[in-house]
């Protein structure tokens, strides 16, 4: 509309002048549009309608990933020589604030859709058949590192405690107050391990003593450390980061 009136009012002027004015106008409009987009970038994400749309898309991505998840597809395993040293520490607190769990008094609490809910001590857990893996830990931040974890195959443990594996979710609460949850298909994946050792040593506090659930088919924040209790449920338990906006499934 603007352009048309401008063209008529400039009728009779040289085409070169018109073009140069057009160009300037276009530049100005383009720049202000860009500035507007940048300014509103942050507020745009905070807008309630936009936030709902984005959360809805994240839910769609959960379903898409659940559909894409192949229970028989194994994460690549690496030789000892590929292990990342030193393995990075990452948490919402600093390394000198790591939660120290007393192994002597420790008992893993079980709740929800589980038949045998007797708590497990560490010596009891250490006696279960153990297996090792050298896999790539991928952080949602983008970095990755290769480490060696050892422990009991989680599906074996679930069978032993009589967990209802037709349930949808398994939730975890941790000694550092962190909490998360995973889908049952991932829990039953052959490489999902309840680990007690890192690099052939007892899991040090900074990597999650007394135990870390190692899931090489999921991003790092879905691998809970310092697990104190777990529960099998059909009610969606979410998780700390997940409830803040990180994608729940977060599969690799």
């Amino acid at each position, binding site marked *: 509309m603007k352009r048309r009136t401008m063209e008529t009012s400039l009728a009779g002027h040289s085409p070169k002048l018109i073009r140069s004015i057009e160009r300037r106008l276009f530049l100005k409009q383009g720049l202000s549009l860009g500035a507007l987009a940048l300014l509103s970038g942050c507020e745009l994400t905070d807008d309630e309608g936009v936030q709902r749309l984005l959360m809805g898309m994240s839910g769609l991505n959960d379903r898409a990933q659940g559909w894409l998840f192949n229970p028989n597809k194994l994460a690549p395993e690496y030789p000892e020589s590929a292990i990342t040293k030193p393995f990075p520490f990452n*948490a919402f607190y600093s390394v000198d604030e790591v939660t120290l769990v007393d192994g002597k008094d420790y008992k893993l609490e079980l709740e929800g859709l589980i038949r045998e809910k007797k708590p497990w001590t560490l010596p009891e857990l250490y006696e279960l058949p153990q297996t090792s893996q050298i896999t790539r830990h991928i952080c949602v931040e983008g970095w990755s590192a290769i480490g060696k974890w050892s422990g009991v195959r989680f599906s074996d443990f679930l069978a032993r405690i009589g967990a209802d594996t037709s349930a949808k979710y398994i939730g975890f609460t941790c000694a550092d107050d962190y909490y998360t949850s995973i889908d049952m298909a991932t829990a039953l994946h052959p490489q999902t391990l309840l680990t007690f050792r890192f690099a052939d040593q007892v899991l040090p506090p900074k990597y999650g003593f007394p135990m870390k659930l190692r899931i090489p088919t999921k991003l790092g924040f879905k691998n809970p450390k310092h697990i104190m209790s777990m529960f099998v449920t059909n009610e969606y338990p979410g998780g700390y980061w997940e409830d803040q906006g990180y994608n729940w499934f977060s599969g690799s």
Partner: protein
Amino acid sequence: MKPLQAIALAAILAAGTGAWAADAPAKPMKMDEPMHGEMKKQSMKKGDVKKAAKKKERELKPMIEKETAGSAKK
């Protein structure tokens, strides 16, 4: 501190957490400090996780108790 006292203290520590977990002195988490790492929003504090965990526990408790009781009967 006298040598005997020191030995006694060391023994108590070793019998406690030391033998299992403590390879570094633990500092209590400073709850009102900003969070560490790159996953956080600028406004997030370390103590937010504890608060959220308590709220989540309250929310999930009825269902988990129901499911716990239900699976015990089988």
